[in-house]
């Protein structure tokens, strides 16, 4: 990308005592994008955010805003810049001697010349959006952790900022609210065109809403780019980080981790003198569409449930499955001809049509908490596996043959 980044970190070093928290960090944040910073706890993610807003000053290096060093800004330039930045603190940092209403109204009262009526209107709107209407007269200490977070979100967004720094916006939220918050960030971005910088541990959910990914690794930027680039690069530290989080979720659904899948595939090819025939099926859902209509959390849930069904069905027959990319499940059937595999998949599709998809839909609806009726299409592609095929090649072949095998339209029941 050639455009000037909105915010750029150049060789930023920050030490606390003799501990170096950020070590020559270089980072670019572009306008109107959602940039997500991930990294293990204690790698300096919050410290990084605090530099953007000026709460911390770097020991070395420079922060540039639209190509201009922040340190050299005049007072009114700096005020202008600060005017458009809002910060959501990790621990919310609500003013605990004020009610929820006063907390949300505080930035408007203190930094604008709006009248009380206008302030009331804006606060009421934000409070409504965050489902906090019944809590307006309560004090922060009377609220649950999740509600406090939403108050903090409302307070950060009430001034309609241009840049919002979210320090773990979804931590402590139930899945429905988590989905709501992530969707809201995307929605706001589209509507007002703001730039969001996110710190989150909600992997993989945040990947779907992020335009760029920054991985902090021991005080330095280990990776900077899109999610697809991150997966393609296969840098050891990224792989470790992503897989440790994904692996756990796959374990819950009974799918194999990608490593285990690779191992089993190799064993199938070379074990007991090789095999004569094998087939593979690639299942997927129209993920982008689901993501659009239901939000990231529910979309992930649909895929997860599909994986669980596929695994339960094919495992007794010796088939093994794993998740590939965001939205694909690859199942390999050893000692099975493509014709037989096709029959197996057709049986599976029937099960999906009869009951499973309706059940998946219910799960997705519960996750999302709304009354909408998502339309789910399951695609499958079957291909023969030859002993020289790499897993990537199998996926490519199967993907070319994919077609809709099962569909569930709203509430009216299954139809093939």
């Amino acid at each position: 990308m050639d455009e000037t980044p909105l915010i750029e970190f150049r060789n930023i070093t920050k030490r606390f005592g003799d501990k170096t928290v950020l070590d020559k960090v270089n980072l670019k944040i572009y306008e109107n994008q959602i940039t997500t910073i991930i990294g293990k706890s204690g790698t300096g993610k919050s410290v990084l955010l605090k530099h953007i807003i000026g709460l911390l000053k770097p020991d070395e290096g420079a922060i540039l805003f639209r190509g201009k060093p922040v340190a050299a800004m005049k007072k009114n330039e700096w005020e202008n810049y600060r005017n458009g930045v809002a910060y959501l603190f990790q621990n919310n940092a609500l003013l605990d001697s004020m009610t929820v209403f006063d907390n949300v109204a505080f930035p408007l009262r203190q930094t604008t010349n709006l009248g009380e009526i206008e302030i009331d209107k804006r606060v009421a709107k934000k409070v409504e959006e965050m489902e906090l209407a019944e809590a307006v007269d309560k004090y922060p200490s009377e609220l649950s952790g999740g509600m406090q977070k939403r108050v903090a979100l409302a307070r950060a967004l009430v001034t309609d900022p241009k840049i919002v720094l979210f320090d773990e916006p979804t931590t402590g939220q139930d899945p429905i609210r988590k989905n709501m918050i992530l969707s809201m960030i995307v929605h706001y971005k589209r509507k007002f065109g703001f730039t969001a910088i996110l710190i989150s541990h909600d992997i993989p959910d945040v990947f779907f809403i992020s335009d760029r990914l920054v991985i902090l690794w021991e005080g330095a930027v280990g990776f900077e780019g899109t999610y697809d680039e991150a997966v393609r690069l296969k840098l050891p530290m990224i792989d470790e980080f992503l897989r440790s989080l994904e692996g756990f979720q796959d374990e819950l659904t009974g799918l194999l981790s990608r490593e285990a899948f690779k191992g089993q595939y190799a064993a199938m090819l070379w074990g007991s003198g090789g095999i004569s025939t094998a087939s593979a099926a690639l299942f997927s859902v129209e993920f982008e569409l689901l993501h659009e209509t239901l939000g990231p959390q529910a979309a992930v849930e649909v895929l997860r449930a599909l994986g669980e069904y596929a695994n339960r069905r094919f495992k007794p027959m010796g088939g093994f499955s794993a998740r590939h990319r965001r939205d694909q499940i690859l199942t390999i059937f050893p000692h099975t001809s493509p014709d037989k595999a096709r029959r197996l998949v057709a049986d599976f599709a029937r099960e999906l049509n009869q009951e499973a998809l309706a059940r998946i839909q219910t799960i997705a609806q519960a996750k999302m908490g709304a009354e909408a009726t998502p339309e789910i299409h399951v695609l499958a592609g079957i291909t023969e596996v030859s002993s020289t095929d790499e897993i990537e090649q199998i996926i490519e072949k199967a993907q070319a043959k994919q077609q809709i095998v099962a569909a569930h339209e709203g509430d009216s029941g299954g139809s093939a």
Partner: protein
Amino acid sequence: MTSLDRIRSSNLPITLLTPIGRGTLGLLGNLGAMAIFFSMAFINIFRRKQLREIVNQVFYIGATSSLIVMLVGLFTGMVLGLQLFYTLVTFGSVGALGSAVSLSLVREMGPVLTAIMITARAGSGMAAEIGILRISEQVDALYAMRVDPVRYLISPRIAASIISFPLLTAFFDLIGIIGGYITGVLLLGTNGGTYLYRVHSSLNMVDVRGGFIKALVFAAIVSCVCCFQGYFCHMRAGGFGAKAVGLATISAVVLSCVMILISDYVLTSFLM
């Protein structure tokens, strides 16, 4: 080991002097920081949107302290009346009781005791409150919302102290003189008219003004020291979190009281 370290470790008198030097430098640094802190807060008193918060603080520091200040004033006046009566009676000059009570109250005891009482009541509260705001990142949150924490938190407290201290001192003086009247006239039976006449004739505007100047200086000292200790409690060595707030409150009260007494001496020597 640098050459400076070698000299330090080889030379006993220097080893003994090092802590004194370090302490002095630390003290001067702190005083400087406090002066800058105070001036920044003072300038911000006159910004927009401050009045509401200042009124709140006047209520908190001033109005709610008035009862306890008056109670202390009453008993101080009464004990002064008692002590001075028995001292003056040996010289046969009980008539001077009114002068003695009113002058010692207005010049010395009024400003000093009021300041110490407010330190104990509101000063400790200020330090603890600001300290908790600091450790729970609420100060940072103010900054992040583009609200200057010094302007929003410190300036109204300093303004309110400057308003409240002289007023409370006046209450203290008045009630103290009444206390002296109660013991001297009502209990011990000196002439009431003489008492009041002596109070009236011996108290000059210079004394009253001196007392108020003291009250203003104490107001600046107490509010600045207490807010400063709370505001920077996260930078203290030897304590984090709640402990840092506790330590900040202790030093706020101790330092305020010590500085009240030291500055009282300095001011008195100038005002005399």
